[in-house]
């Protein structure tokens, strides 16, 4: 067993984990964060994506023991129980989800992309948006609603910035 300290969605906890425990399992079981979904457990589908020190990371390919002292964000921290983050709202309006299983992974993958584009003050082209989500598999939507959600939220951000 290994002693680690994790800061997860603002809560810091010290815990003792087996060296082989996946970060995904620790988040799900120890922190009750059921929004972390395991789709393949071999790093191919992106369902389990969380932020580790602000960067998207596959929690099924990460041992909890590797994360000592790090900060973790999961989908639960993004827009609360009302899913009020602008990207979540855009997923809703553009029908960017159906069964919802892959959705937290897409949200966590795409938030940094949306922030980056907003910071660069530019609208990415279709190819760039699709490239940004090419590590995530969605089996329901055919991706189009997700692409449109990303475009919509970046558009809103750019417009807001232009007005400010």
């Amino acid at each position, binding site marked *: 067993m290994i002693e680690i300290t994790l800061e997860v969605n603002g809560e810091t906890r010290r815990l003792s984990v*087996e060296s*082989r*425990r996946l970060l995904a*399992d620790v988040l*799900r079981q120890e922190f009750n*964060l*059921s*929004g*972390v*979904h*395991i*789709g*393949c*457990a*071999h790093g*191919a*589908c992106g*369902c389990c994506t969380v932020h580790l020190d602000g960067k998207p990371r596959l929690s099924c390919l990460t041992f909890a023991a590797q994360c000592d002292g790090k900060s973790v964000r*999961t*989908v*639960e921290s993004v*827009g*609360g*129980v*009302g*899913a009020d983050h602008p990207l*979540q709202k855009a*997923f*809703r*309006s553009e*029908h960017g*989800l*159906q*069964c*919802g*299983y*892959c*959705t*937290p992974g897409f*949200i966590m993958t795409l938030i940094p992309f949306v922030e980056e584009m907003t910071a660069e003050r530019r609208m990415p082209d*279709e*190819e760039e*948006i*699709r*490239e940004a*989500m*090419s590590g*995530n*598999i*969605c*089996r*329901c*939507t*055919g*991706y*189009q*609603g*997700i*692409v449109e959600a990303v475009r919509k939220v970046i558009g809103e951000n750019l417009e807001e910035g232009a007005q400010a």
Partner: protein
Amino acid sequence: MTQQMDRPKHIGARIQRFEDTRLLAGTARYIDDIRLPNMLHLRFVRAQMAHAKVLEIDTEALEDIGFPTQVFTGADIGDLSIKAHQDYPEMQYSEQPLLARERVRFVGEAVAAVLADDAYQAEDAAEMVFVDYEPLQVVTTMDQARDPEVPGLFDGWRTNIFVERQMKGGDIAQAKAEAAHVIKRTYTTQRQAGVPMEGRGVAAEYDPASRMLTVWSSTQIPHLVRTYIAEELGLPESRLRVVAPDVGGGFGVKGQVFPEEVLVPWLAMKTGRPVKWVEDRREHLTSSIHARDHSHTLEAYVSEDGRLLGLKADISVDVGAYSTFPFTAAGDPGMAAKVMPGPYDFQHYEATFRALATNKCPIGTYRGVGRPSAVFAQERLMDDIANELGLDPIEFRLKNVVRDFPYTNALGFTYDPGSYAETLEKMRDLLAEDRAAAEASSNDPDKRIGVGLACFVEQTAHGTPDFTRRRVPIETGYIAARVEMTPDGQALVDIGLQNHGQGHETVMAQVAADALGIDPKDVHVRHGDTLTTPYSVGTWGSRGGALGGGAVHVAAGRIADKLKAIAGHLLQSDPQKIVLQNGIAHPEGQPDRHVAVAKLARTALRNVDQLPAGMEPGLEAQYSLDGPNDGTYSNAVHAAVVEIDTKTGKMQLKRFVVVEDCGTILNPLIVDGQVRGGVVQGIGSAMLEHFIYDEDGQPLTVTFADYLMPLATEIPEIELHHIETPTPLTPLGAKGLGEGGAIGPAAAIANAVADALGIEVTKTPLNANALWHLARQAEKNRAE
């Protein structure tokens, strides 16, 4: 059938989905989120050989493992099994034991169940169980399965053919005699599957105090799972509850009753503790179900002037090792034989179809069921005929599609009104520029553009007679809805569907809201739990909107009638003239003389002294809606535009267009999502997805690095156009929609490849390797 909607307000509106909030927030509850006190975790030991005798299961190593474990094998479970018998006299039966007894028949079959207090420990323990096998002769090809010299997979079998039957109508000999052209081809579609992002999982808990067994399963068919468990385990069904929590995709895969769904509750009762099993991705890819794997030989009889006179079909499907419940081993080949006449007008048809047993994962249902393969064969054939006769493929189809409705086809199935010619004509307009570009590229040495289309009908929401005819254990196809109002004027809809992405929680609210004159936000739709929902067959066969929506409409309409009677009484007005809308009831044309729907609900449920004399208190209604005898036929035309590098075969899918007709559109946001999602799965079928077994029956595609599904970068925007031909056969005029998107892409893309390269394409997948070979072949043909 019944009266259709007047004054729809919410039906047809592009309303955002209510279920999205919990799915986006991460607060949805999927099967692996079920955690029960004192729960045991189950891990299977699965067969590593495709066909073998089980000589010994050695669990000795578990004695020193350092934590408590329990192991169960085939010897412990008696004759419990999945029995999926179709009542055909010539059918050879298979039974899939819940845990293998004496013999394994495919890699991945469950051999032993290992239980421990923790999922990691269960996995450790399962790895320490040693199984000694004696290999048996393996059957991996359709030819081997048909070889009478090869021993049967089951004791007493003659050959490895589950069933071989015929379907016919008209006089095929006459069609052949009259034909000026006879065109014969063989087309094959590969083994693939639905592969939802969430795999399967089951949890179960038995409460001795109430004698209630509760089973949670990631299933599309909770009531059917309940009945199967009750019958197989000999339990009273009234004390069994099956809950499908949030389900992370199904696509038909989770529309079977799996051995694990019976075994897990059995283990919970046996051990006296809750038990949970959640499969990993390898298990899902090898041990759930596969789909397709068809070979069709078609012979078309065509007149001098390009009219189809008749069609003869020989259909084989490699259905793997066991018949699956409730659609059986005969399901896929039978469906392909049944739907092969498609949208075309000819009256002579004969099909032979057979289900072949091999040492592979069993075949089950996947979006389209038989139709993607049938449409691939049929629509490739239409292009090959047009080519041979020197006809334009669209004009050839327009000459042959059904135009007068209702139309009864060669097998006696009656098609309700559709838009077969209109969708083709619309597509012809949409493709004009692409077809010109394809023509212009036909001599380009480097890059060729090709345009291909697929025109099809889809029998959806079929009713009980369709299942009776096939003598299939599903037996029926109705959907029931119970609608109830609460004293505050809100509504509860309990529906026998299971929502795993289709948007039922929104669409059913729209339908109920229109009937009751309230806001869809004030309708709470519940589903997936046998404790709260009326008995139904679940979600499959494109019946959610057509039958589920229809059932809600009729049940809510009965409550509306009662609300109107109460309003008439309170307003001293004729109940027949009361209108319910915007939360109020008023006489038609007199919105100022109104009473709130909430007040009517409170009157019916609480202030019952104010009800009309003799009226029964309460506001609840239930309606079960069976499908039309022959179903209702949706139709669509799909088209693909591709660009192919003539040297390497590298292909770019430049454009994909759909013109579809699913009758009344209940929510355009959801309809578009269903079609687009289906199309992208169909693109995966056409170009990527392939389960491969070697000659020993070892699966070679056991991870997402081997089994490739479409990524966002590989597909274009899917362009949609709608034509609405409401059906008179369902209450809302809606036809089935969920599966259609997946049916056309393989045919459309293959036709586009054939058009681009000027060669015939006879099989899928059209992956990079296949395209390279096709490009080579095309070059060789040109050189000759």
